[in-house]
């Protein structure tokens, strides 16, 4: 991988909670505009891993670099689409999309253009003045995804954002994420326990081992898009990843 392409560098990330060793010496790179999925067995510390990447909790040792600088939410644009519903109930759809941009003190006209773009891409025109609780759970999740992309983030982290959706809605939203990702060229780290989802979305999959987690294997997914769940190659990769998670 040529070095100038690397956007995110994770070096020797280690985390202990007291005596509990959760993450062990994790290092990897993410290229600019890459879609990386992280999968692992249940309870392997995926969420801890994400919380470290967003700087919500400090690592025991190791560092995350964005553009070769230690990551700092105040300097870099980091977006996090959380697993649980995180749209602000007191803000309308439009205001929710504006929220992060306002925090970053981005000029008003830029905010307007970006929010319009997102609203159009997500087809939320008729809901722009609605409050989240007036929408369905899936629409609420779409606001969150939209809010994250609106930041034009250096790094976009997603923590099983579709965990609570039914399968049909999942497919639909996965396609939507791919659409947004292509449109904005964002660098994405997407955490999931759903292997099929990972194979469908990722350009590269990192497989975490059980606690203390390390990167067990890296799998490149070079299938053309849109991907087909029934494509023999797709099935082969899915089985391969499943085996890796099963046998540790």
């Amino acid at each position, binding site marked *: 991988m040529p070095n100038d392409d690397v956007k995110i560098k994770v070096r020797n990330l280690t985390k202990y909670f007291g005596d509990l060793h959760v993450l062990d010496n994790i290092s990897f790179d993410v290229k600019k505009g890459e879609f990386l999925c992280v999968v692992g067995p249940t309870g392997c510390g995926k969420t801890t891993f994400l919380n470290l990447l*967003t*700087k*919500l909790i400090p690592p025991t040792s190791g560092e995350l670099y964005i553009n070769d600088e230690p990551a*700092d*939410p*105040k*300097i*870099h*644009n*980091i*977006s*996090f689409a*959380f697993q*649980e*519903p*995180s749209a*602000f*109930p*007191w*803000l309308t759809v439009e205001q929710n999309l504006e*929220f*992060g941009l*306002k*925090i*970053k003190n981005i000029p008003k006209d830029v905010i307007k253009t970006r929010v319009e773009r997102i609203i159009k891409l997500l087809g939320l025109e008729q809901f722009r003045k609605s*409050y989240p*609780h*007036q929408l369905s759970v899936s629409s609420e999740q779409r606001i969150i995804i939209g809010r994250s992309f609106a*930041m034009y983030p250096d790094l976009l*982290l997603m923590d099983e954002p579709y965990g609570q959706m039914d399968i049909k809605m999942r497919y639909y939203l996965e396609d939507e994420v791919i659409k947004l990702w292509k449109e904005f060229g964002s660098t994405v780290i997407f955490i999931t326990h759903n292997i099929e989802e990972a194979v469908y979305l990722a350009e590269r999959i990192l497989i975490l081992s059980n606690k203390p987690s390390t990167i067990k294997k890296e799998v490149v997914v070079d299938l053309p898009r849109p991907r087909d769940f029934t494509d023999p190659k797709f099935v082969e990769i899915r089985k391969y990843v499943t085996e890796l998670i099963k046998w540790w």
Partner: protein
Amino acid sequence: MNNNNLLKKGRRMGDLKYMILSVISVLTFLLIWQLLVIFGVLSTRTIAAPTQVLVTFFEKFYSTAPDGATIFTNIAVSLKVSLTGFFSAIIIGTPLGMLMGWYKPLDRFIRPLFEIIRPIPPIAWIPLTILWVGIGLGAKAMIIFFSAFVPCVINSYTGIKLTSQVHVSVAKTFGASNFKIFRTVGVPSSMPMAFAGIRIALGNSWGTLVAAELLAANAGLGYMIMMGRQFVRPDVIILGMLTIGILGFIFTWIFTKIENVVVRWRTL
């Protein structure tokens, strides 16, 4: 659509039916009261007939007997006192509660004092306030302030403590400073609770107003009631009581309207 309209119409008819029932209940009550007075079952020395109260109400438009002020002066004085106390309590209490709930050192610093003051009944402050500031507007407003201040603080404190952690994390990952998170996440999310506190404060301040005026005043609705007792004018007493009740009702109504605008997202 048609069905919907029918349903709405049906509901309106139902509402009307219940309203008629309520009106009948009040009228029956007034009628019985009136008859009891007319037939001498109740003495006019202890209670006035509803019609007499109505007459007194119109008389008090211009008459200053027996308390020395017209009804409008009394209302104005009482409103001035209660609103001064009430709004000072909101302006100081609500932000204080929120800041205490958000910033731990402030919480630790102020909370012990607050916990000492909290259980003291507001009217227990009356003697001290009279010593400090006499019986003017300031004294009464201060007593009302004590009654309204506590619920403002407690509710906004609890409200901001209940801020969802994931909302805080969202703002944090966007790079917001602690104060910015307080302002953009903590404050709006605590608004429904803060408003519930202000609603309690409104009731308290109106209730304490009478107590404050009963003990130390020279005009106002509470003072009017007290003078009514001294001059054995039950009509004046009842007029004062009803005026306080109706004004309280109007306040609650206005307040609900304001609340519906500010926390619109909750009511839609």
